[in-house]
């Protein structure tokens, strides 16, 4: 399974649900799959994709989807514990797991050496977990996750594909375009 085709499928299932994507190719794939105001692309904030999604899930009753990566989540495993502690019903984490640090030369990550992120999630008290490796199973898992109370945690094993062109997005525009779908923006200085 390729991350881009998985991203396209999740975008179709998501409706208007806010989606946060991991930095680099994860965010580029989301933009190419379908740019929308409810996409929160991340940039340099290593490891914080699912922490952002947790904060969003605590600010809105809407379903929130995190499209994280194995390297990113390994940098911030504590946030899995925080998700397990807070038990947000409206949060689904999908981890694109290529078992490597794709952008830095393809070095084998810890998930390629035995670390099982699904088991980490379960041990942190997240009951609804799955590991999938093809598109059909991912579609079933995400559909079920969006229809039932979470938190949900899905590890999607992927093969690394060609990188798509870098998405033409910018952090400040991303944040306020996203936020304005939830609130009318305060006008500073007025």
């Amino acid at each position, binding site marked *: 399974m390729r991350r881009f085709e998985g991203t396209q499928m999740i975008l179709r299932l998501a409706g208007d649900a*806010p989606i*946060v994507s991991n930095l680099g190719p994860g965010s580029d794939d989301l933009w190419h799959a379908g740019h929308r105001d409810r996409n*929160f692309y*991340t*940039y*340099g*904030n*290593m*490891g*914080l994709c699912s*922490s*952002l*999604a*947790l*904060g*969003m*899930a*605590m*600010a*809105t009753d809407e379903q*929130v989807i995190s499209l994280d990566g194995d390297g990113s989540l390994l940098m*911030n495993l*504590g*946030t899995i*514990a*925080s998700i397990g*502690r*807070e038990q947000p019903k409206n949060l689904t984490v999908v981890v694109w797991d290529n078992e490597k640090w794709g952008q830095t030369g393809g070095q084998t990550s810890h998930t390629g050496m035995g670390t099982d992120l699904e088991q980490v999630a379960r041990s942190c008290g997240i009951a609804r977990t799955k590991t999938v490796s093809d598109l059909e199973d991912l579609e079933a898992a995400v559909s079920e996750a969006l229809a039932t109370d979470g938190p949900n945690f899905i590890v999607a094993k992927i093969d690394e594909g060609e990188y798509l062109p870098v998405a033409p997005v910018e*952090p*400040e525009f*991303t*944040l*306020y375009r*996203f*936020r304005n779908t*939830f*609130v009318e923006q*305060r006008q*500073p*200085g007025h």
Partner: protein
Amino acid sequence: MNWAEMIVKALKDWDTSLIAYVPDISIHRVTSLIEADPYFRLVAATREEEAIGIAVGSYAAGRNAAVFMQSSGFGNSVNALASLCIPSRTPIPMFVNLRGGPGEFNIAQVAMGQAVRPIMDQLGLVHFTLDDDRNMEKLLDGAMKLCHANRQPLAVCMTQLLHGGKLA
């Protein structure tokens, strides 16, 4: 009002109801009030950069958020501030227990504590330091206003002279 109650009031006055934090014995005076108050949602993070991520996520989805941490943990949050809050212009008020100053007993707190404000200066972040509670209510209100007007993180550093600190 004591200093802890003034912080709670400022948060409420600025509609800031999600508080992400890493526990600290001195700011426990404030976070225990927050935890007991149904207005707030207090979220414990495992690490300060995670707290920043949670707070930015909350703000992005329409709920104003603040972060509480100790100065040692500020060191853990620097890249989250520099690569997330600053480029996306996110107003996150940070309340930092500033260790490493007069009265400090722990050598391991000094270097980081002394480096907090120079690092904030290098990042271009506005910060205020409170050694006592004179004018504190006004300062907190003004700090929250400035944080939102500037749409950048802002730090209120609280020293042992204000809160009494951790005793050896």
